[in-house]
């Protein structure tokens, strides 16, 4: 059995390698390079913010054991627990007994002195955990939800959509049937039941979110494929007897890539926001901002108010979604041929 943190390290390695590969491919293509430059020109701030979130998420995904200190009470857990780069930014055993205001030196209830006075920039939660630490760790979960789920959604939607559009006939009917069935069930219901059946791990929640979100893009892919199939050079290739698979991979899919990118970005924010609702229902992923918001939801009603937990998680969530939305708008403007037409 592979340890989860080792798997996570491998994934990061693969992602970085993949990113380098994509960067090289983009540099070679004029279209993509131009689009990227245009994008950076329009929304530099939003792109920067997204990049920061991605960086924090990557840092939190690289973890290894060892190098920790024996705990204050002599427990050796820290020596055997895998800790990520983000975890190591904070001293071991950084917890307090319970709540404390940001930058405080005493506890919120009772006024006893803190173990690390003034070091908790965003305060501590009910169990005394540092909120800045928790917020930073939430970035990884948010990107996991958005990114990993999109990675499930997009190939799935492409597979079914392109097949349906290209082959038509029975295949189209079957796919259309599948889409209709899934679309007819209220999304939230399907999500809840899926997560309850599959269990509450991060991967399972992502799969459930994926299953409930692929229908939209599938339809779009199908529609575009229908149009592409009628193009001259595709017709010619078919007449020449080129294998169907080759045609699809070389002519159809590359022409869908701009839609893929747009969909990816737009899907991302929707998915992350849905996770907050899942957290409220009790089926979210542990450590996510959604869960922090759910835990902190009652704190607003305290008297005096405890606001820092909710504020940190909400701000982090809002920041990411806002940035992604702005980037998404710009991406669509840059890549969508229709909007390009109306440019004055």
């Amino acid at each position: 059995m592979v340890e989860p943190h080792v798997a996570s390290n491998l994934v990061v390695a693969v992602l970085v390698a993949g990113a380098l590969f994509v960067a090289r491919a983009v540099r070679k293509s004029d279209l993509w390079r131009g689009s990227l430059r245009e994008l950076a020109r329009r929304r530099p701030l939003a792109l920067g913010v997204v990049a920061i979130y991605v960086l924090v998420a990557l840092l939190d995904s690289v973890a290894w054991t060892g190098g920790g200190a024996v705990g204050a009470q002599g427990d050796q857990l820290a020596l055997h627990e895998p800790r990520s780069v983000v975890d190591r930014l904070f001293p071991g055993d950084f917890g307090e007994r319970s709540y404390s205001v940001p930058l405080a030196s005493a506890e919120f209830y009772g006024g006893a002195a803190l173990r690390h006075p003034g070091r908790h920039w965003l305060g501590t939660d009910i169990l005394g955990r540092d909120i800045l630490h928790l917020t930073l760790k939430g970035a990884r979960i948010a990107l996991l939800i958005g990114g990993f789920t999109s990675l499930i959604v997009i190939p799935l939607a492409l597979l079914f959509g392109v097949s349906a559009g290209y082959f038509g006939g029975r295949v189209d009917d079957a796919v259309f049937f599948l889409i209709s069935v899934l679309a007819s069930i209220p999304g939230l219901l399907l999500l809840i039941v899926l997560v309850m059946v599959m269990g509450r791990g991060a991967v399972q929640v992502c799969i459930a979110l994926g299953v409930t979100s692929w229908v939209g893009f599938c339809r779009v892919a199908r529609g575009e494929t229908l149009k592409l199939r009628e193009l001259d050079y595709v017709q010619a290739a078919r007449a020449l007897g080129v294998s169907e698979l080759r045609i699809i991979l070389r002519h159809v899919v590359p022409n869908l890539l701009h839609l893929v990118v747009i969909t990816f970005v737009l899907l991302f924010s929707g998915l992350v926001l849905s996770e907050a609702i899942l957290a409220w229902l009790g089926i979210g992923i542990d450590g996510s901002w959604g869960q922090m918001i759910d835990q902190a939801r009652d704190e607003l009603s305290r008297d005096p108010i405890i606001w820092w937990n909710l504020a940190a998680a909400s701000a982090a969530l809002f920041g990411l979604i806002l940035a992604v939305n702005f980037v998404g708008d710009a991406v669509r403007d840059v890549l969508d041929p229709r909007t390009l037409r109306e440019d004055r």
Partner: protein
Amino acid sequence: MLAYLIRRLAYGVLTVQGVLLLLFVLFFLYATPTEMARRAVGEKAPPEVLEQWIVNHGYDRPRVWNPANPSDTLLADHFRRMLSFDFGRSDADDSPIVERLRQGVVPSLSVTLPLFVGGLAIGIALSLFVAYFRETYIDRAGVVLCVLGMSVSILLYIIGGQFLLGKLLRWFPISGFDPQPALVSRFLAIPWIIGLLSGLGGEVRFYRTVFVEETSRDYVRTARAKGCGDGRIMWRHVLRNAMIPILTHVVVAIPFLFTGSLLLESFFGIPGLGSITVDAIHGNDFSTLRVMVYIGALLFVLAQIVTDVSYTLVDPRVRLE
């Protein structure tokens, strides 16, 4: 046209069957009859009582295949009853499901219908407004506001709304529901406001895109050159031609008016169909849950057909085969 309708209806029926099957599979993967019994009878019940409940409610039969009598399985029964609209009684408390549906429709509609109509009216009005003042600071500010609005989780809208309007300003009750006409709007004010605000961002942006696309068309330029007033153009020409995408967007949302907003009803204690659904999920009430999903699916399929048909009415270029 008729042939098309019949084909679409037949197809819709097939889809609904698929939904029922999927529902059956998912639910019985997730809940066992023992758990349903425990939910219904109570925590402290001994196993013999749970067994009795299971027998009383017919869940002791085989699920899919019964060699003795192929039509006496839970699956067959499931299909038979749903297709004949024999909804039966809730597993949680034996109350007739049709009764519950009847009781829940009014509260749900009283939340979703005004929200839908109001949201549509205000959304279109605002987006027309913003599209009209295109490229000025109103437009840019509007778009930014929309994106800001869309980026906040609905959970925060609800928490914030309850806190601000109910607790700080004391304008409306924080939650609850009373169907008497004098009181109903007081209880629904916060859900309406929150529902409206949280959806407004996305709606206005969508409509704005549609309107902007329309106003860039040639015929608008022609009309303006001919001396037609801007307002008139927006109202009489642009709006009507933008109806197709708007229609698709709108009609597809209609089924969900009936099934109620799960979130709003839960947070605000409104006893509508959405809250029935959430209760059914948490209470392992399979018989109620399948009815809710079934009705949702039926309405959705119907809405699709209506959308397609209404295309012909709105756009003479579209012809159905």
